[in-house]
């Protein structure tokens, strides 16, 4: 749902669609697709269920007396029927384990270091700036001008 993206800046959306970010984008998209299972809300068991997404990462589904959460998001519109499956609509972005931290890039964006960001984007270094690795590389930021 578009409203789930409220917490995600247009910059991140834009950035995710850069060619260098493709592996990360694919990982995020695939994390939202569970293959070989059509899981209607009525079939979600009470309590916790672990589902394997198409990127092989796990989604944690918790059915607490009818209120269903997927990782950190709630199902706000259950069971949009589709010919080839079903859509459960969430109110929040959920990202694969290993937590992508866009903080560094966001920080660059927020200090208006767009030229430098552009260089990162053109390099193959993008994924290094969006990483689950606790030790993000220290960054020495040249002046914009």
């Amino acid at each position: 749902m578009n409203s789930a993206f409220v917490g995600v800046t247009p910059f991140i959306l834009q950035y995710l669609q850069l060619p260098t970010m493709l592996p990360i984008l694919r990982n995020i998209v695939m994390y939202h697709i569970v293959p070989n299972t059509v899981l209607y809300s009525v079939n979600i068991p009470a309590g916790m269920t672990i589902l394997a997404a198409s990127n092989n990462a796990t989604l944690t589904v918790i059915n607490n007396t009818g209120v269903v959460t997927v990782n950190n998001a709630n199902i706000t519109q259950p069971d949009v029927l589709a010919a080839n499956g079903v859509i459960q609509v969430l109110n929040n972005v959920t990202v694969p384990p290993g937590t992508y931290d866009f903080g560094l890039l966001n920080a660059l964006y927020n200090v208006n270091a767009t030229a430098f960001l552009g260089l990162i984007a053109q390099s193959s270094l993008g994924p290094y700036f969006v990483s689950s690795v606790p030790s993000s590389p220290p960054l020495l930021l040249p002046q914009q001008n």
Partner: protein
Amino acid sequence: MLTPLDFAPTLRVILRGQGLTTMISQMDANGLGGLLNDTTANHTVFAPTNAAFAAVPPSAINATVLNYHLTDDVEMLSSFVDGILEWSHLRLPSLLNNTQALRISVNSTSNTVSINNATILSGNYTASNGVVHILSSVLSLPPYLSTILQNVTVLSNLSSLLNSSGLLNGALASSPGLTLFAPTNMAFSQVNPQVLQYLGRPLAASVLQNVLSYHIINGATTTPNAIYYRDTIPMGTTNFTMMSGDVAQFNKTGVSALTINNQANATVFNVLAANGVMHGVNAVLFPPSFVFDLQKALIGVDATGFLNLLLNSSLLAPLLNGATNYTIFAPNNAALAALQQNMPTGMALLQMLQYHIVPGTYFTTNFTNGQVLPTLLFPMGLNGAAQVLRVNTSLLTSTYINNANITMANYTAVNGVVHVIDTVLVPPMNISTILATNPAFSTFNSLVQASGLAALVQGNSLSLSLSLSLFIF
């Protein structure tokens, strides 16, 4: 050799002696005077008093009416038993030339005997050629069955249905020799209201006629031609072919103990009619050929447009009368009309119809919110999975199937159940199409496109099975 009877007076002399002069003069005036003198045949004469004749218009008296006041044997008052019939001298084509019956009533409290509605004031005046009983009023011929039905309050439901089927003003108003087993309003109140609603629909006209004529024995087609009064229905078990052509089993275990098809008991006997006789029964009879199947249920709920679409499908039409149970969500005629030029055709139409049919019987009373019902729709290339409908009861006041409101629920047939909905159900689109067309999902869709994973959300792609649970952020 002479017997004392040869010296006894004739009926004419006895009538005159009792002052029944109008009876004599009317018999003479209508060419029946000879019967009173004829010593070769015996008659019982029910003779109205002069005052009784004076109370009816002269035009009402004719040979037919007068013949109705005579029988062809000698019946003393002591032989009259409550409820029996006597056979008059009158033979009418409307009764297949059988004799017109007279109904005897005996009031044991007042010890009075009545013939039809007339009371015998005194009797047993014996003649050489019969006996005379004196009547308080002139007998009139019974009305036709059609007239009786319209005047008996407790038969108003039957009368109304007979009227709409055309039988009331048809056979019952003119055909001779009918025996009608008439279900009372109480009997109709015990019929499933959904079946009654069905019988009232124009498309059920021929079935209605069939059901109603199952209550009639057509004496013109029996051998011998017969009207079945209480005492002429045989004791024991007898199968009669009714006017509808179906057989009914009659089981008579006593003079007034008659059961039809082990279901309906006769409660009133021998209501005489000009063209037969009527007995009251306490249950509506349905011929064995009557089966309340899904086709009838669809007519009952007036989903005639949807029914026609199903009947035009060689694949789906047989299900309506088949042995397997189905639940049909039937759009009402207004819902179909709303489609107008968007009405699908060909394969799309078949798929639309299949999406409204669920194998098995599902009553709304057992629905749970979010329940999914697998339909008959199995799209090609989706690994054989049935498309589902989703129950939504969260609104409490009404039950929805997908986006359609159930407006009439649980019309129960022998092979399933029909629920009427106010909107035509549209089979779901592919996830890829939903993402591309629903603006609420545009952000996610743009990421799917950018990631090059569009094939992942296309169901009929070979690289992916159909089964996707798609959690969209």
